[in-house]
């Protein structure tokens, strides 16, 4: 590969865990049937420099009808291209600025939202709103520094849900979800290096705690060129593990093109399941961008950017949790969880067991949801801080945690629940043991019987100890 003169860069598109970028709808995908659909056509028009973009013209030539699926409760007229955009989502912009800082980028002083012409129907307006936030950064890798060319905040496109010969159907739920696009310089010379950079960037983004998780929330494009061939962008790379193989296949394809003296124009290709790729469209040019006139220039508050703290990276956090005594598996899961801040706050208390707190945060809620067959209610941070405070102060036993959570989930008042799970006094426990003592039962069964009666209001170890004392 090396002697082919491989140059490679990547573009990462990460969905942010905030509301939509230019509408006040939630960023959530909807599985129920749409309330209604609208059908539209798109036209290729000359851009601000008087040129029709090649990519735009290519898509418009297909003369397709686009059908958009609308859900009344989470679609606004902005997504339908029936209303101008709302002001930019400040939370999303803040994440963008923070990531620029993490990537050592120079932040643009005044941001201008642009319209990037897209006429494949995935944007109702015929353009994607996109905004350059930072340029010229770098990250450190095992093979040295890799340049970050641009950090861009933009709208995600609509979700393709079907197609026929003459139509393409899109759902508007995904349209407008904030995407952070990070584009590296073509500094990578081996496929493994590409994979490493993708991993580093992914980890950095997750470390902010404000990015979406799960399938489809992060997408990678890989840019590849070998000596003598123009840059080719490969879209739809699903898995970082595939990058080396995809790179190798594309480099060979480019080599063959050169050998056969074919045209080697810059273009975009779609990666197929077998990791080969097919031509998608010509490479869009700068002429498809012009200002979003409905949004005034945004002045970046540089003083506020200065006060933003660079988050602890997940690998560092994992090490810290290991030192606290969590096992490897729990350390990883806790460090990668959005509840890591709740965990850190709980660890400032005196009497709490790290493993118990981590398990409560990571597993108990999930188990309860499964048990009660509900998707309702995530526990608020406030709930956990009160729960851990009660545990720390001995007003609650470890055994009652899941019962307390179950009743809270069903809508009961926290203070009322806690008062009912007040730990039993030693004398009350001794009386219970005396009333239920059965000398014919083996020790284990006896403890079980007593613990049933205790109903979570005493620690198992303590009960066992008191039974031994009682026998004497």
């Amino acid at each position, binding site marked *: 590969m090396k002697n082919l003169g491989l140059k490679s860069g990547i573009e990462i598109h990460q969905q942010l865990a905030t509301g939509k970028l230019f509408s006040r709808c939630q960023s959530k995908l909807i599985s129920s049937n749409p309330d209604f659909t*609208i*059908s*539209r*056509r*798109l*036209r*290729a*028009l*000359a*851009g*601000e*420099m*008087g*040129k029709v973009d090649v990519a*735009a013209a290519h898509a*418009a030539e297909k003369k397709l009808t686009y059908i958009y699926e609308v859900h009344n409760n989470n679609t606004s*007229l902005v997504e*339908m*291209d*029936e*209303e*101008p955009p709302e002001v930019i989502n400040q939370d999303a912009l803040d994440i963008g600025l923070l990531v620029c800082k993490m990537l050592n980028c*120079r932040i*643009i*002083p*005044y*941001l*201008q939202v*642009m*319209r*990037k*012409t*897209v*006429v494949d129907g995935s944007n*109702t*307006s*015929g*353009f994607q709103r*996109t*905004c*350059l936030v930072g340029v*010229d950064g770098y990250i450190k890798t095992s093979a040295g520094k890799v340049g970050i060319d*641009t950090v*861009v905040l933009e709208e995600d496109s609509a979700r393709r849900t079907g197609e026929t010969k003459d139509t393409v159907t899109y759902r508007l739920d995904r349209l407008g979800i904030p995407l952070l696009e990070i584009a590296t310089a073509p500094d990578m010379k081996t496929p493994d290096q590409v994979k490493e950079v993708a991993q580093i960037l992914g980890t950095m983004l997750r470390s902010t705690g404000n990015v979406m998780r799960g399938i489809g929330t992060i997408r990678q494009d890989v840019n590849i060129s070998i000596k003598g061939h123009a840059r080719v962008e490969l879209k739809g790379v699903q898995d970082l593990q595939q990058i080396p193989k995809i790179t190798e296949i594309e480099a060979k394809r480019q080599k063959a093109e050169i050998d056969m003296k074919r045209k080697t124009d810059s273009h975009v290709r779609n990666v197929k399941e077998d990791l080969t790729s097919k031509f998608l469209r010509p490479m869009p*040019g*700068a*002429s*498809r*961008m*012009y*200002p979003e*006139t409905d949004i*005034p*220039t945004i*002045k970046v508050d540089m003083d506020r950017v200065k006060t933003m703290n660079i988050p602890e990276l997940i690998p560092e956090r994992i090490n810290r949790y290991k030192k606290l005594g969590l096992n490897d598996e729990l350390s990883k899961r806790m460090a990668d969880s959005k509840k890591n801040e709740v965990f850190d706050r709980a660890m400032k208390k005196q009497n709490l067991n790290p493993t118990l707190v981590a398990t409560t945060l990571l597993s108990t809620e999930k188990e309860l949801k499964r048990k009660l067959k509900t998707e309702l209610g995530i526990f608020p941070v406030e709930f956990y801080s009160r729960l851990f405070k009660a545990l720390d102060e001995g007003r609650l036993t470890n055994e009652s945690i899941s019962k307390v959570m179950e009743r809270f989930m069903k809508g009961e008042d926290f203070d009322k629940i806690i008062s009912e799970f007040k730990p039993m006094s030693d004398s009350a426990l001794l009386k219970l043991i005396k009333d239920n003592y059965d000398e014919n039962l083996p020790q284990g069964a006896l403890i079980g019987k007593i613990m049933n009666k205790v109903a979570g209001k005493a620690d198992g170890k303590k009960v066992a100890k008191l039974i031994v004392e009682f026998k004497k």
Partner: protein
Amino acid sequence: MSSAGDRVRIKHAGFEYSGILLESKDDNIFVLKLSNGYNVGIPKGNSKVTVTGNLQVEKLPELKAEKNLKLPNVSLVSTGGTITSRVDYRTGAVHPITKPAELLSQIPELKKIANISVTPAMSKFSEEFSPDDWSKLAGFVGRELNKENVRGVIVTHGTDTLHYTAAALSFALEGLGKPVAIVGGQRSSDRGSFDGAMNLICGTHYANSDIAEVATVLHGTSSDDYCIANPGTKTKKMHTTMRNTFRPINSMPYAKLFKTGKIEKLRGSNLRHAGEVNVQSQFEEKVALIKYHPGLSPKILDFYVKEGYRGVIIEGTGLGHVSANTWLKSITAATKKMFVGMTSQANYGKVDPYVYSTGRDLFNHGVVYLGDMLAETAIVKLSWVLGQEKDKDKVRDLMTTNLRGELSEKSVPNGFLY
């Protein structure tokens, strides 16, 4: 000195940016287009600019005026507005297209429907229109209509006051024997989703149809499926931003129009006929529309009387009311001096003075009830009637007589919320 269109390098805060300088709306910042297409803003303070070259802007190809003898001739009279606006890359602002041929070159389909000749009548946003502009525009449209080889006329117009102009042309064009389509757009022409393209295509089909009426032709739904042609005196902008903003009020549309040329008629109309149109384009400027609301002082009416206005239209509540307790005195004084007409802010349905005592009081003191005429249509009609007629009784007669479909003989059940 650097100016918009220059290729420049700007040094600011230890960093260098290079690109094409654009005009900036903010005097304190440079706006620069980088080579990747993005625009960025850089503070002017502490910046050093070096000019390195100049940008050459490519001209849009213009529509070639090759006439196809098999196609009908349609005249397009442009006035400005979103439909004939485009983004000016130098300012980043939306500006009117000065050469409408630019627009036609972006909608090549039109060439297959008609030979379109373009007359730029004016170039303004529709909120800047005055009765004087209606008059001027009627002159332009009349001249085109009276050309023997012209099948019909399209007027492109900003949507804000498009319905006022539609009413004005309806009254001004007497004996109309050809179609007049007034077409606007709600999305700018720079984008792929430009709605004005389909509106213009459907408007061209309308101009070639046998419906000899002034009609607004814009989207019928939020989809790009068909346009509706609404009677010029019975339509209103009902949504600030949606494509299907123009709805017929107290009427059905004349027709649905499809891009293919299919026309589905929905109500009766005057049909194409021979004969010249007679342009009656005097409009009186001293008229006013008053929207009544609870607590509104009648002093506003006193003011118009004092200022020598020749007529007012009141957009009253419900069946056509204002507070009898506070307004009757001023009403009595006003009706002695000028025409006072009553319409309803309910939009749909007609006013009626006989149902409540308030209405009877107002009517008995000289207020003229204007049936199901829209307030906007009523003010335009009053302006036009006063432009032609001085006699008070004749003005009253003309205002209460249906001239251009503005007053329905009967209220049709499907005229509500079409």
